[in-house]
């Protein structure tokens, strides 16, 4: 998982939400995933838990 791929995936989630492609149930799933992506990047920026790479 790189910064670029995380960013790309986040953009896709936003796009889906924007054009109503997501129903409520999927939405909670997607928002949770988005949260994971953001946290991953924030940690990676600060080199926290370098082994986070394996998690995604």
């Amino acid at each position, binding site marked *: 998982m790189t910064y670029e791929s995380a960013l790309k995936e986040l953009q896709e*989630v936003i796009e889906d*939400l924007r054009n109503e492609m*997501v129903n*409520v149930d999927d939405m909670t799933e997607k928002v949770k995933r*988005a949260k994971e992506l953001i946290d991953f990047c924030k940690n990676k*920026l600060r080199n926290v838990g370098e082994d986070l790479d394996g998690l995604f």
Partner: protein
Amino acid sequence: MKSYSLHELNEHLRRVVALNVQDALWVRCEIAQLNESRGHYFMELVEKEETITAKASAILWMRSYNKLLREHGRGIRKILKEGMEVMLKLKVEFHEVYGMQYYVEDIDASFTLGKLAIRKQAILEAFEQEGLLGKNTEIALPAVLQKIAIISSENAAGYQDYLKQLEENVFGYTVDSQMFAAAMQGINVEEEILFQLKRIKKQKDKFDAVVIIRGGGAKLDLMAFDNEKISRVVADFPLPVLTGIGHDIDESILDRVAHSSLKTPTAVADFIINHNLFFENKLLQMGSELSFLAQEKIQEQIFVLQNIEQTLQWQTETFLKNTLQEISLLENEMQLSAKSFFQKEEKRISNLEAIFEVLDPEKTLKRGFSLTSVDGKIIKSIKDLDPKKETEITTQLSDGIITSKTKKKSK
């Protein structure tokens, strides 16, 4: 035959030169070699097209050198270098023992700087033609600059400032910098930087960017960064190159070809931190947009539910109202019908009563009717009687009974 002693000859030449070349002259030439000892500078001057067309040695006494320093500042050292095209003010003397000697009395810095500028311009134009000027700049910076290859010299002040600035960033970002030490001053700048650039290129996947920093110190060797070879390699480099050479007046060729050129090493560190901050901000923005969109969606659903709820409520209410209405209607109807039913029944009863009234035997008898019966059985028709025989019949009147016998029967 006439002959002269060597001294006489040299002494004559001294006078000829002293007579004909009294004043010092401005001379354009190139410094082929330059050696300094005890503060004096000994130079080999040449002029050359393809080959050397003129050659001479010249001396710059320490005294004159210090005068030049005072007049032109430390930039003079940048000019007094091998390979430099210079304009020198030379005093020519012929010495009986040392022969022809040129003494440097002054130097025209602008001439050399002009030459340098022209050369630099030429290089820039060549790079322009080859499309090298913007090449490194076109490389898109990765989302985050976290693995940096640094070309600097260990003890360069700039290097320490750069590291400190990175380490003390308030956002807590970590940036790993790997050092590729190279001389940043003196003659082997080119060789060492080229060497390190090559090394970095081999392991380029390990890095997000290259940083070339020097920082501080004399501006004298800025010229080293007008170096064509280094600039060409940087222009063509597969990774973005950031420069922080530490000067503020003119921009070296290296700065022009680099992806981004910053004024100082600290500025390079800031550039990196800000780049990463920009990334994180974008991330957080997306996060908030996402939560906004999610909220919106949830709100939408809530509205939908509320609508349903309301419609439900409204419907149940109306339904109830309707049923109640129906019930009350029914009730009324029932009452009405019940009433009318009773009324009808009452009427019927009273009719019956009336009828009964009318049919009441007593009353009928009273009205003159009578009940005729034979042997206790009421007879209604003359057929009930035996025509031939006299039968005893009893006739009940309102106030008594008559028994009689039948005589005649006629329709």
